[in-house]
C-alpha cells in the first residue's frame, strides 16, 4: 500500500515537472538499467546514454502529456522505453534481440521522436537568448501545454489577459531573433 501511494505520488510530482522526483527516479534505477543493458553487448557509455535519454523521454511524457500510468509502474514504463532505445541503437531485428518477458510491451512506451526542421532547430537554439520570464512563460504554454488559466493559477500573473499579452510579446521576440539570424 505504501509502495502504491509512493508510486502515485511520484507520478504526480513528475507531471508537475518536479526535478527532485526526476533525480530520484534517475538514481533509483540507474544501476539496474545498466546491468539490464549488459545483455545487449552495449558498452557502458552507450548504456548510460540510452538510460539518460530514456529517463528524459519518460519525464517529458509525464510533463508534456500529463501521463498517468494505471497498469504499469514508473520502472516498467522506463525500462520499456529503454528497451526500445536499446533496440534502435543495437540496430538488431527483434528476432535477434533477446527481449525478456519481464518488461511489459506497451505502445505507450514507444515515444515519438520528431526530427526538427530548420526553423524549429533555430527556435530551439535561440530559446536560451530570450529573457528568463519569456522563456518560462512560453515553456509553460508550449512545453507543459498548460492553458492560459492554468498559467495564471500557477504563476504571479494577475490575469489571463496579462498572460496573453506577455506571451504575444515573447513570441515576437523569439521570432525576431530567428529572422535576424
Amino acid at each position, binding site marked *: 500500500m505504501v509502495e502504491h501511494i509512493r508510486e502515485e505520488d511520484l507520478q504526480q510530482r513528475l507531471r508537475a515537472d518536479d526535478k527532485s522526483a526526476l*533525480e530520484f527516479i534517475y*538514481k533509483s534505477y540507474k544501476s539496474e538499467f545498466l546491468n539490464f543493458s549488459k545483455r545487449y553487448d552495449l558498452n557502458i557509455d552507450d548504456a548510460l546514454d540510452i538510460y539518460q535519454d530514456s529517463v528524459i523521454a519518460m519525464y517529458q511524457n509525464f510533463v508534456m502529456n*500529463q501521463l498517468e500510468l494505471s497498469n504499469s509502474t514508473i520502472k516498467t514504463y522506463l525500462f520499456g522505453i529503454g528497451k526500445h532505445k536499446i533496440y534502435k541503437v543495437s540496430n538488431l531485428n527483434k528476432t535477434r534481440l533477446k527481449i525478456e518477458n519481464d518488461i511489459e510491451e506497451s505502445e505507450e512506451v514507444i515515444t515519438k521522436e520528431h526530427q526538427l526542421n530548420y526553423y524549429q532547430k533555430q*527556435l*530551439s537554439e535561440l530559446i536560451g537568448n530570450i529573457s528568463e520570464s519569456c522563456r518560462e512563460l512560453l515553456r509553460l504554454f508550449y512545453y507543459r501545454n498548460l*492553458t492560459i488559466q492554468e498559467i495564471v493559477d500557477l504563476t504571479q500573473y494577475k490575469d489571463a489577459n496579462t498572460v496573453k499579452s506577455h506571451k504575444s510579446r515573447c513570441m515576437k521576440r523569439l521570432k525576431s531573433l530567428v529572422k535576424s539570424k
Partner: protein
Amino acid sequence: MDKEDLLKKYFKQTLSEQEQKEFYLLLDTDSDFKVMFEEYSDFNLAFKSHEAEQLKDFLKSIDDQPKIKKTVWYKTPLFYYSAVAILIIALCVPFLMRPSADSLYNDYFDTYPNVEQPIVRGTVKNSAYNAFDLYENNRFVEAAQKFEVILKDTNNSNLRFYYAMSLLNSSQYDLAQIQLSELDQQDFDYKDETLWYLSLILIKKKQTQEAITKLKELDKSNSPFKSKERKLLLQKL
C-alpha cells in the same frame, strides 16, 4: 470546443474520438487553425528539444556530483588516530613493561651460601673461619675485609670468589666485578657461579649484551646451576 483547447488536447494526446474528428476537420478546412497548429507545433517541438538538452545536462550533473561517502566508524579519522595510538602503545608495551636493570638484579640475586667452609660445631678455626663466620651471619663488609687480608697471603680462587660475594652483598659492585672478572679467566670450583654473578652485575650496570654473552657462555657449559633462572632471564633481556 475552443480551438486552443483542441490544440492543447492534441499535444497532450488526450483528444477523444469525437474531438479528433473535429480537430482534423478544422485542420483541413480552417486555414487560421492550421496556422495556429503549425506555430504551436513549431514551438512545442523546439521547447521539447531545448528542454531535453537541459535535462540531459541535469542528469549528467547528477552523475558528476561527488558521492557522499558513507562514513563508517572504522573509516573515521578518529578511528585511524586511535588505531595508530593503540599500535604505538602496543609496540611500546614490551619496552614499557620491561623490568628495570635494578629490578632484574634484585629478582635474581640471592646470597650464595657458604658451601666452601660451613661453620658447624667442630669446624677448624683456620684463617678463613672468621671470614666465613661473618659471611654466614650476613656481615658482608667485615667478611670482605677478612677475605681481603687472607688473599694478600694466598691466591685461593675459592676464597676470592667468597671475597667477591662479600663485596657484592655489601653493594660494592665495581670491586666485586673486578674480582669476578679475574676469576672468570680461571677454571676453578665456582666457575659457573662466577659467570652467573658477573652477568647479574652487568645487568645492574645495564650492560645487557655483555650480560647475555656471559649467560650464553654458561649455557654452553651445560651447567645445571641456575638453569631455569638463566632461561627466564635471557627471555627478559
